[in-house]
């Protein structure tokens, strides 16, 4: 569970079957697959038969839960080689989804955040979505100066691939951009960088 003092960071849930759902879509990435295994195990046969699973095998930590997921008699299991493609797959699914659809998301914060951007664009409310963080604490970071998005950032200070500036990652998260904020680390005096550290929360 991700518990930090970062006020703007979403508070994540624990995935559990939503009884009010008429149709379910569960999307996960990497370690999030393990969370889906637990979720599917808690579902009734009726719920499983109305569940579509989207799974991206892209993983920062190398975890792959595909074999376990294949054991469940779900309506449909769609596998994607990358998180970007899985999010696109979710977009395509929601395009034709009907009222009463419930969404479950699990994986890295960047995956959950970009999936939420898609869900929000279809007007899904927070009471129709559950999110559970899984895996590493890598962050998705938006560069305030060139608007480049960097995935899987692990250090407090890193070089922006978009503008080549050294950025410091602020503990401030935007759901709209699904990213943390990166700003020039040596803004006041060139070369005078703040302390680097692993982003372990």
């Amino acid at each position, binding site marked *: 569970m991700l518990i930090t003092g970062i*006020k*703007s960071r979403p508070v994540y849930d624990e995935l559990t079957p939503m009884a009010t759902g008429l149709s379910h879509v569960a999307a996960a990435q990497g370690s999030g697959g393990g969370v889906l295994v637990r979720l599917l195990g808690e579902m009734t046969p009726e719920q499983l038969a109305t569940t579509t699973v989207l799974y991206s095998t892209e993983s920062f930590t190398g975890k792959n839960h595909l074999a376990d997921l294949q054991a469940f008699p779900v309506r449909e299991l769609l596998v994607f080689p990358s998180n970007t493609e899985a999010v696109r797959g979710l977009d395509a699914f929601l395009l034709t989804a009907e009222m009463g659809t419930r969404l479950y998301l699990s994986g890295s914060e960047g995956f959950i955040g970009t999936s939420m951007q898609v869900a929000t664009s279809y007007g899904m409310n927070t009471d129709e979505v559950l999110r559970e963080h899984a895996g590493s604490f890598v962050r998705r970071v938006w560069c305030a100066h060139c608007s480049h998005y960097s995935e899987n950032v692990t250090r407090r200070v890193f070089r922006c691939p978009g503008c080549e500036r050294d950025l410091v990652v602020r*503990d401030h998260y*935007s759901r*709209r*951009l699904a990213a943390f*904020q990166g700003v020039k680390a040596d*803004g*006041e*005096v060139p070369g005078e960088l703040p302390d680097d550290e692993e982003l372990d929360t």
Partner: protein
Amino acid sequence: MTAIPRTTDFTADETYTPEGEYRFQNSREAVRRLPFPFPDDEYMYSMNLEPHVAAGTGALRAAFDIDEHYVSECAHRDQMLRDMPGVHYLALPHMMEAQWDMLELIFESYSRDFPEHFTLTKNGNEWRWQNRLLGIDDSFTFGDPATLPLDPMEYSTRQAQGEFVVLEEKDNTLVIGAGMTTQRADYSLQFNLGMNFAEFHGPVPKLDTMGILDRALKFLLRMKPGHPVRRVNWSLTVNPRLETSVETLPDWAPDRAKVTPENAGEMVYLRIELQPLHRLPRSNAIVFPVRTYLVSLAELVAHAPDWAKRLHRALASLDPELVDYKGFHRYHGAAVEWLAKYDDGAPLATGYPWIEDGIQPGPDSVD
């Protein structure tokens, strides 16, 4: 609120950018009418919300204050919007009703409080707006965006001093739905758009543990149309630069390292924020305006010596965590050292300058 006609000379030939060489200064009158934000020698956050009623003859006389910098600030806003489209003005699609609310509030306030400069004539929904300071005379249909050259909020706030953030009420909190923020102090509108009250205050230290945030939110949610409230806030900044957004930090942050105890009087500016909040009648949104005033330490000493002494004491005793958060860690010492020369330690009045017996600017040491 009655309008008192007064003669203000508007300084059109002013700039707030390095390209324009920061051609900016305050007249003596402009300094002495400031909403000076230090009621005590020691400063700490407080729930300093009060009813926004007319007070005194200075910045709190009108619902939305304008001063001698009006024309140059509007020109600066236009320049910033052209330089970085999509960065300083943003509105979520469902905010159109609040946009009309904003236009109405600004235009009605200006025309009531400054009839010598602004006239709003209504004939049903057919409105005519005359802004003599900017040479604008437009007619449009209230509620019909097609009759205006720009979004109602962009159109009206391009003709207003200060910035405007519109908060919509949702799930018992306030969410940023739109903003005209060409004068941002180290935050990003693109990033903060859509955040709720707790989220966008996230980076501010101490607020949460002091319980101020919860109380402020509860207070704001009870606001009614026609009963605005206000608070003042402040920071320090280097040079008379209005646009200090996160996006352009690489351009302005190096100036912080150039301040010395010798040049602090000219380089360091007190940035005063007057925030008169209004509940909007149709949309039920709340507008959070930030009217920013810049005054150099040297201008304070010259025109408002008692305020300079007060600022010295408040800065000298400021909580280090606030020094860091407000971003002047690097030159805090230089500013205090420079101001110390002008503080004789004499006791000063307590309270904001616009209340009875509050701290006044003091005798004019120039002339």
